[in-house]
């Protein structure tokens, strides 16, 4: 199992909101220590797909799932799998920065404290290393007990990233993490994501095709709930095999 290069394997996945089918017959392998970008027009199902990977869609009533999602070999929708356990192993950064209205320290320590880490020394260490990994430590190390809401938007988003990294997740999901940020904050986040690749598996939803081309190793194109094409990012952007992919990338729709 350890030698299996795939962090996530999705097998014949179908997903329904009530009667409406949101995802159709998705098959996808996501390699460890790679950045996978999910692109496609609004409403194509890419965010829905991302939120299935950490069972966030469990929070919505009336949804139904067929098929399997394996996280390092374990079926995360198996009856014995606990959604809270899955979410500890799969971190998530959201579209809008959503720090808790608590101190910077307590934002990062929130996850570890949930899971029983209480001693001050251990928490200090986790908070520092997570903030360093999110390139925020130097900016906030003297203000750890200030409210997280006093940070700028870009800093808040890096704080949310640090908060997710504090759990040392096996996979990191990012749902359009830079869509609410200015270009400078965006490029900081992009650099970070590329650094994180060495220790994490990253799956990122983005509307920004340049961003997908800049940072990802692999790109998946979704359209109308189907996975139209997936492959190495270079190939998707230079030599797409499907007509719809080419139309989308060249800006003919979407």
């Amino acid at each position, binding site marked *: 199992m350890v030698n299996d290069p795939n962090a996530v394997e999705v097998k014949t996945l179908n997903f329904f909101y009530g009667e409406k089918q949101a995802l159709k017959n998705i098959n996808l392998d996501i390699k460890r220590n790679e950045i996978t970008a999910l692109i496609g027009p609004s409403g194509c199902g890419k965010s829905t797909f991302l939120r299935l990977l*950490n069972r*966030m869609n469990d*929070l919505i*009533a009336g949804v139904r799932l067929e098929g399997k999602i394996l996280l390092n070999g374990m079926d995360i929708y198996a009856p014995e799998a606990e959604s*809270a*356990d*899955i*979410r*500890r192993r799969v*971190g*998530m950064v*959201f579209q*809008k920065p*959503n*720090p*808790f*209205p*608590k*101190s910077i320290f*307590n934002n990062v320590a*929130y*996850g570890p404290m*949930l*899971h029983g880490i209480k001693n001050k020394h251990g928490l200090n260490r986790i908070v520092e290393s997570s903030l360093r990994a999110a390139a925020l430590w130097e900016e906030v190390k003297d203000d750890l*007990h*200030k*409210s*997280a*809401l*006093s940070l700028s938007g870009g800093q808040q988003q890096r704080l*949310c990233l640090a*908060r*997710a990294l504090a*759990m040392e997740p096996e996979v990191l999901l990012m749902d359009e993490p830079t869509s609410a940020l200015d270009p400078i904050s965006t490029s900081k986040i992009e650099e970070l994501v590329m650094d994180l690749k060495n220790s994490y598996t990253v799956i990122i939803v983005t509307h920004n095709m340049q961003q997908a081309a800049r940072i990802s190793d692999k790109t998946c194109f979704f359209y109308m709930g189907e996975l139209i094409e997936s492959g190495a990012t270079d190939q998707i952007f230079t030599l797409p095999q499907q007509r719809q992919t080419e139309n989308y990338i060249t800006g003919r729709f979407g």
Partner: protein
Amino acid sequence: MITHSNVWRFFTKPLMKTRLAPRRGLNGLAGKDIGDRQSRIIFTVLGFTALTALLLIVLFLFLEGTALFIHPAEDGSRVGLGDFILGSFWYPGYTPPEFGILPLMAASLSVTVLSACLSIPLGMGTALYLSSVAGPRVREWGKPVIELLAAMPSVVLGLVGMMVIAPFMQEWWDVPSGLNMLNASVMLALMAIPTIASIADDALESVPRDLLEASYALGATPLQTLMRTRLPCALSGVGAGIILGLTRAMGETMVVLMCAGGAAQLSFSPLDAVRPMTSTIAAEMGETAVGSSHYSALFAIGITLFLMTFAFNLLASFIAGRYSQKGYQAA
């Protein structure tokens, strides 16, 4: 001569004028328009009427109440502020009269505190259930039902306290009368629960969904999310709801008049009869001669009560402001 059509035109003119007049940019808002001026005058008069009436009531209350300390009583004795606040005997009919309101204040406070012990857990439990446990269908009818309970006339609750709770307590604890501190507290708690539950539920519901998602995404269970994110974020609203509920309990008159037993004694047992400030005023004002020292003393009780509920309200807005401005820094 004012005819119907004249009056009608007076009220409709401003509306028609704004519709027909050409737009004049921002200067048009500066009150040059005759229609604007009419409506401004109407609203200003209405607003100041209410404000003036309230200020006059406060002035009246203070003038009548402070007379107790300024003029000597009928028998020539004087009542000091210390005797009034700290005196433990309320015998307005004696010669010389005794106007010590300590037992009355103690009764008001103890009834309020005891009712808080019941209404805070029950009201908060209701709010937590509605916002975090109940399904959408239960919520749909549960919230309006709880808000309707707030519309229950207090005299009806008083009847229930007198006719249902009192006989029950009398038999259960074998006491001479079931009209006591505990009885009044139970009925006051029933009055405060809808206020606390409804405001606390609104506060819990208004916590942004993306914060709850952030908590879930870190592997928090629903209970952990409730205790560590939802409740702390809603704390200011929840605190304001609790204090408003308690203020209502403290100012309530009919329930304590009917259920508390009415004995002006310092008491620490929930099964003793007590006489809170509100019921003292309500029960005795009819028997006093206007301008007598007893009359002034009742107004002085009114001042005390006003200052206490005023302090409660200040505390509520302080708590609400403290948590919303600093971004829950302490949490």
